[in-house]
């Protein structure tokens, strides 16, 4: 074991009062893979993401990212270490252009402070160029370079999702956490988004996603973890998960449409 796993989660627990939203979950995610987390509503998937991203501290357990203990670290530090995320509801600044929304994404790789702004330092000018270039790059990556000057107000839901992806990419992450990337978009767009996720992995970014669309997950994921009532009830390849009786009982079996 020379290499550390990308993400090593041990006995992760988050309690809200008496409720354990995430309960004693241990799992390892490898680099360069698409890892999926599925489970019924309220299974603790988003809480799990919040813990990994540092948005809330765990009650117990530890999180190791590339061999480094990041448990309880602030979310901005975790972002700088290379974990980016998107949210269930896409958050962008509507009254601004796509490109303007993206430029701040690379801010965490820059140093300029207020003083640089006042004197208009060379560092600031260089870093602004760098951020703009990175924004254009990621916009191109998600296939929207023709929309750079459009207002967020005027682009479609799927395009917004792509902009949110691009924003996460602009932080130069090693790992991207996608919370229901295909929520609220049609099947064809879902297919396109899946292709984009594959493209991200092909470019060396590891992906971890929460998703409800089973056909998307089954064709996309390398590894799936199933949560139910905050506990990990199964883990494995899509094949294994499909045939796991525990999963079928807890989740898939209750709804035939989902399995199909």
């Amino acid at each position, binding site marked *: 074991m020379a290499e550390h796993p990308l993400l090593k989660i041990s006995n992760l627990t988050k309690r809200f009062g008496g409720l354990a939203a995430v309960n004693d979950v241990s799992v390892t995610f490898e680099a360069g893979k698409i890892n999926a987390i599925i489970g019924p509503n309220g299974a603790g998937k988003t809480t799990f993401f919040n813990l990994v991203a540092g948005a809330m501290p765990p009650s117990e357990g530890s999180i190791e990212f590339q061999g480094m203990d990041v448990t309880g670290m602030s979310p901005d530090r975790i972002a700088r270490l290379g974990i*980016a995320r998107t949210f269930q509801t896409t958050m962008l600044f509507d009254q601004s252009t796509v490109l303007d929304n993206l430029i701040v994404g690379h*801010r965490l790789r820059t140093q300029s402070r*207020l003083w640089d702004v006042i004197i208009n330092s060379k560092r600031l000018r260089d870093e602004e160029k760098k951020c703009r270039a990175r924004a254009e790059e990621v916009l191109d990556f998600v296939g929207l370079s023709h929309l750079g*000057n459009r207002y967020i107000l005027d682009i479609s839901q799927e395009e917004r999702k792509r902009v949110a992806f691009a*924003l996460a990419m602009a932080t130069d992450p090693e790992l991207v956490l996608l919370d229901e990337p295909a929520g609220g978009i049609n099947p064809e767009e879902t297919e396109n988004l899946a292709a984009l996720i594959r493209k991200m992995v092909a470019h060396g970014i590891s992906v971890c996603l929460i998703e409800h669309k089973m056909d998307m997950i089954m064709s996309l994921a390398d590894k799936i973890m199933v949560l139910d009532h905050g506990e990990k009830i199964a883990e494995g390849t899509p094949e294994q998960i499909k045939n796991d009786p525990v999963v079928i009982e807890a989740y898939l079996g209750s709804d035939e449409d989902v399995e199909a």
Partner: protein
Amino acid sequence: MDRIMNFFASPAMKIVLIAAGILFPLVATSEYQIYVMALAFIWAIAVYGLNIITGYCGQLNLAHGGFFAIGAYAVGLLTVDYGWAFWPAFIAAGVIGAFLGFLVGVVSLRLKEHYFAIFTLCVGFIIFLLIEKWEEVTHGTLGVISIAPPEGFGLVDFTETIPFYYLVLFFLVLAIWLISRISRSLVGRTFLAIRISDDLAQSLGINLMRNKVLAFVLSTTYAGLAGALLAGVVRFIGPDLAEITHTFDVITYLLVGGIGTLMGPLVGTLLITWITQAVQSFEEYRMIVFGPLLVLLVIFMPRGIVGTFLTWRGRRLASRAPAKHSASRVEKKKNQEEAGTHG
């Protein structure tokens, strides 16, 4: 139509505005008008301050009027009770505004959204009570009388209205210039990310506390300096300056002009100041006119006059861009820069 639209957003507009500011005393029909304009400029500086923390950074600060009063009292007390000259007291007002802003910010910015607003409302009220009740220091309800005017160093006499007008105009231009720099820069973009959402900003590696405190300190410094200028022109201040109504006035100016835009604070402040002057004979009843207008404005133009204009223009340009297809790169870049300032 397009030419008018583009003119309003062009760099030439800056020159026109500055020229208008310089020429105003020549076209004003009375000294009173110049005086009103100078006061409006002072309030506009305060509104620019509020725009940093509330407009760009998205944190509704209801103690802003309190910090304005602190700046005014700093100059008042330092010049009257301690024999300071105006200019050192003016700088001290900025430093005190920044320092107290830092202390209040570090505590209050731990709270989010309306909790932050409520907390700062209380801070504003505490500032008012301190000024009114702490008689040994602040002279209480008597106020501070015969505050030193800004020294003109034998060149100009700032107790005269017109020189003072130009002094205030100078600071206003300086204030806007600095904000335009900040809002366009990575620092301003950082504030804007926080305005969209704390969670998003943090996920982008932005240190929330550090940036919010920076925005807060900037805003209270602006408020302190604006208050200091007011003390220098009015030369008599009382505790009513710290009353919450001033905070709400400032918020109204910001909302009408355009929250989070560069020119919004100026447009809102001037517009409301002059409308108020025009309907002065209505006295309290003018609120019957203002109230409904404000409600309509917030419903139909939540980004104020300037914000609505900029969004309309930006969308219009963007929707036309594909037709021409990658319109000359220069123009594209220009649009981005303008949109980047959101004003």
